[in-house]
Every structure is written in C-alpha cells, then in structure tokens.
C-alpha cells in the first residue's frame, strides 16, 4: 500500500499574474504558503486487469477500461487524464480524498493533480523532482483538461512552504521567503480562514480574466501590474518583519482584485468583510479566483474571538490551520509493495477507515 498527500495553499498576493496570458509578456509573481490541509491518494495493488478509482468528494468511481466515455468533463476527468498519461490500465485501486471540499479556492484541484501524479510516479518507480511534478500537474490541468487556471497552485502544493513564485517563459522559480521564525509564527496566528459555504466558480471568473488579459484590456492590465507589485512588496515587508505593511498590501491587493472581473465578490462576501473589519480584522481577501470559497483575514489575536463570533453568526465557518513545509510527500509505503500482492478484485475493505460513509 502507498499513501501520498499534497497540501492546499493560500495565496497571499499576486494571484492572476500566474496566468500565461499575463506572465508570458510581463512575468508573474505570487506569494503563497501551503497549509496543513491535504489531498490524499491511497493506492493498493489489484489484479492486473483491474483499475478502480474511488473519489470520496464526488462520491463516484470509475473502473477500467478508462477509455470508455473519456470526455474530460466527468468529475473524475483529472484522475482519468493522469492515469492515461502514465498508461496505467490495471493493477491497482486508488482512493482519493480531500480534507477540504473542491471549489473552495485553496487550490484543491491542483493539490489533487500533484498528489495523484506523485502517487503514480512513486508506485511506478518513475520518481519525479518537485518541479517536474508541478509542471506535469499544471500541463495536465491546463493543456490537457483545458482549465483556464494558472500554475501557482501546482508549484505551491508540490514544494510546500512560504514562497515567492516567479513565472516567465523560461519557467517557474520557487524562492522560499527569508522570514524571521517569530514573525512567521505571528503571521500564522493572525491569518484566519472562514468557509463561506459558497462554491466558487473559478473557471468562469478566470476565463473572463484571461480574455481580458489576452485582449490587452488596459484597465485589467493595470490592476494586474499593481497586484504583481504588491506581491513583490509583500515579500520584502514580510522579510523585514513589517506585518502592518503586509496587512495594508493584502487589503490593497484585494481591492484591486475585486475589480478584475465581475463575480469575484458579491454582497454576502462584502458584508462579511464589513462586519469582520468592524470587529477588528485589519485586512482580508477571498482565496482563489473569488466568488465564494474561503475568506482569508489578517486579524490581531485580541479581535479573533469577536470576529469569529460575528462571522459564524452569519453562517461562515472557521477553519483552523497551520503553515506546512513538506509539500507533496509519501506518508506511508508498505515494505511488500514490490510483490504487488492483490487483495482480490473488488475488495475495498481497507478503505473503510478513510471513508466518511462507512
């Protein structure tokens, strides 16, 4: 048995500049950190004719042969595409589970892509470096499945940690922030995540954004240039320990981002920001492309109880988290994996411990 996981991320600044339509001309910059919420992949050997993939989040599964009905549209299009890439048609069962539901703006679909690729490459003994892992995950999601997303999530998940990511036609560079451990701890304590309960429609928002960038809409370009500059400034102020300035930049980026495309914000989100700010939060943004998902707040410790109370009263739910460092990693690998001993087709009893519906 093999268990692999890859973390979700929160993007602190620069989101949108990781879209190729932007970075291919101007270069992109993102500051993000991975957090201790993961996408898990569990692989067990099976009969060589047997391929079974079970997703807890979509409550669906596919079995071999996978060519049947592959249209890139099913909820399992992503694992299907990855299995096809590795030409795996049998011999294993895979169980996929996410700690955070899909569509919440924490980069869960990219964490899924990275985790599944890491699991399969480990299983097949074709080890990949972290950058190869991220690049392959990005190319499958963007080129193969045609998703209008950027590359930041794949790199954030594969590498882990608090990084500045730079994007250009020459590739992606991952630069860990040189931040004082005390400051990092304070930052971690002051960042709060709240689920809005709304699933965001990142694809539709990002399509609008990509089109605007491609057509060189001067307003949108201006916003993206500003967002990039804020991300660069954010790195510098975190490295010199200026968290007040960080909060200001976070707020500034959000004010710019909400102008990028209609639908990034809505009344429910705006009202949540108003009451959070009224109760002491200093800055905030919507994670991911926007329209729903998670509210990220920067909030001094003394105001956190009041902010939590007033947001939970309005139906939001706090998600406690910590930063994480490891990125994509193997959690468990049984010693007898070489034997690929089959538990027999259809035997998924090992899944029970992980399933939310036993």
């Amino acid at each position: 048995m093999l268990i692999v996981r890859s973390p979700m991320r929160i993007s602190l600044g620069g989101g949108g500049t990781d879209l190729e339509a932007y970075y291919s001309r101007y270069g992109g910059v993102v500051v993000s950190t991975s957090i201790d919420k993961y996408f898990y992949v569990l692989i067990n050997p099976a009969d060589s004719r047997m391929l079974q993939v079970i997703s807890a989040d979509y409550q669906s599964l596919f079995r071999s042969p996978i060519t049947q009905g592959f249209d890139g549209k099913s909820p399992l299009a992503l694992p299907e595409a990855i299995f096809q890439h590795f030409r795996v048609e049998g011999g294993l069962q895979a169980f996929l589970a996410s700690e955070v539901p899909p569509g919440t703006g924490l980069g869960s679909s990219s964490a899924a892509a990275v985790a599944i690729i890491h699991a399969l490459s480990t299983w097949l003994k074709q080890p990949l470096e972290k950058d190869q892992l991220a690049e392959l995950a990005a190319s499958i999601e963007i080129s193969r499945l045609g998703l209008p997303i950027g590359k930041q999530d794949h790199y954030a998940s594969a590498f882990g940690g608090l990084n500045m990511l730079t994007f250009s036609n020459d590739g992606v560079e991952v630069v860990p922030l040189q931040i004082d451990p005390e400051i990092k701890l304070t930052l971690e304590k002051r960042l709060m995540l709240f689920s809005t309960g709304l699933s965001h429609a990142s694809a539709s928002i990002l399509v609008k954004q990509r089109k605007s960038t491609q057509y060189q809409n001067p307003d949108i370009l201006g916003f993206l240039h500003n967002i990039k500059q804020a991300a660069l400034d954010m790195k510098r102020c975190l490295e010199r320990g200026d968290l007040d300035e960080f909060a200001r930049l976070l707020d500034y980026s959000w004010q710019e981002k909400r102008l990028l495309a209609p639908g990034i914000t809505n009344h429910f989100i705006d009202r949540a920001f108003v009451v959070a700010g009224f109760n002491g939060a200093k800055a905030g943004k919507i994670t991911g492309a926007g329209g729903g998902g998670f509210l990220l707040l920067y909030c001094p410790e003394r105001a956190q109880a009041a902010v939590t109370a007033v947001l939970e009263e309005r139906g939001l739910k706090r998600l406690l988290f910590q930063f994480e460092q490891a990125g994509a990693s193997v959690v468990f690998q049984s010693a007898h994996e070489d034997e690929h001993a089959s538990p027999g087709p259809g035997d998924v009893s090992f899944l029970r411990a992980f399933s939310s519906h036993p």
Partner: protein
Amino acid sequence: MEPITAYFAEFEQMLQAIELSSLYTVFGLLENAYCRGRRIFIMGNGGSAATASHLALDLAKNTIMPGVPRLRAVSLTDNVPLLTAWSNDTAFERVFCEQLANILEPDDVVIGISTSGNSRNIIQAFSLAKELQAFTVGLLGATGGAVKNIVDCYVLAPGRTIEQEEDAHLVLAHVITRHMREVVRAYAFTHSSSAMGS
C-alpha cells in the same frame, strides 16, 4: 463648573471617546458605494431628521469635483406629503421602509441616525434593507440600543445627554463629508491621469 464650560468639556470628552476604527469601517462602505455608483439613503427622527437632511445635502453638494460622477445621497426625511401619507394611512413606523421599498437596490447604503437606537421606523427600514441586500450603518447614541445588533456597522456617540449625542452626529456628518470629498478628489485624479495615458 460653569454649565456652559461643563457642556463644552463633556462634549470634547465624548468626541475623544468615539471609536475611530468604526468610523473607518463606515468610510470603507461609503467609498465602495461611490466607486460602484450605489446610492446612500439617510434617515432619522426629530433632531436626527434634520441631521439626516443635512448629511444628505453635504454629501450631494459639498463633495462635487468637475468631470467625475457625483455622490448619490438622498434623505428620507424631506418629503413631508409622503411621510404624512404613510404615517396617516399605516403607521409612523412605516414611513422610512415604505419609501425605501420603492427605490432601494442591492449594495446601496442605508444610514440611520438615532440617539436611542430604538426608533421603530428605523429598525423596520433596516430590516427591509437587509432583505434587499443593502448595507446598513447606524450613527447611534451611548448604548446603541436595538439598532446596534442589526446593522453591519455603527458609530457610537457616548454622550451624557441626547443634545450632546445629536451634536456629535452633526460632527460625524461633517467628518464623513470631508472624507468623501477626498475620495471623490482621488477618483478624479486617478481618472484624469489614466485618461492622459500616464
């Protein structure tokens, strides 16, 4: 202490006790409304009705910059025929919400001025505003009353008497106006500089 001096001293003390962070939240809300072309409706009873009219006037007239959109501020306290019609035909507590029902749209802002925070016509107007997805702001007295718990944000004027709280509300009206004038000016500046392509 001599009564006039005492009044001044208490007034000054009250101004010092006003929470600036709550005022900044109100600023943020009004800035958003302006940048998105949303409207601001203002209401109050008695002396606060006069302040509502005064704030609407200041926002509408004293923030204008040539070449950029003007603030869209309206008082709900000035149409005497409509106020008396609703009051006479239904109840006085309907006078504001019935006016809003005709015109309020999502993301508009409704400001209620009330020293007690318990005026029923203001509470009913805020309930409707919430239903219609508008933002709600209270300019309130020392305790905030019931309104405190239903609005998105509020500013308390912790005076010793209603007179002082009403004084404070007028000061707040002017502070809000001065801030919004700066916002409109900043908007005009960014607007014209981008038009020149710099």
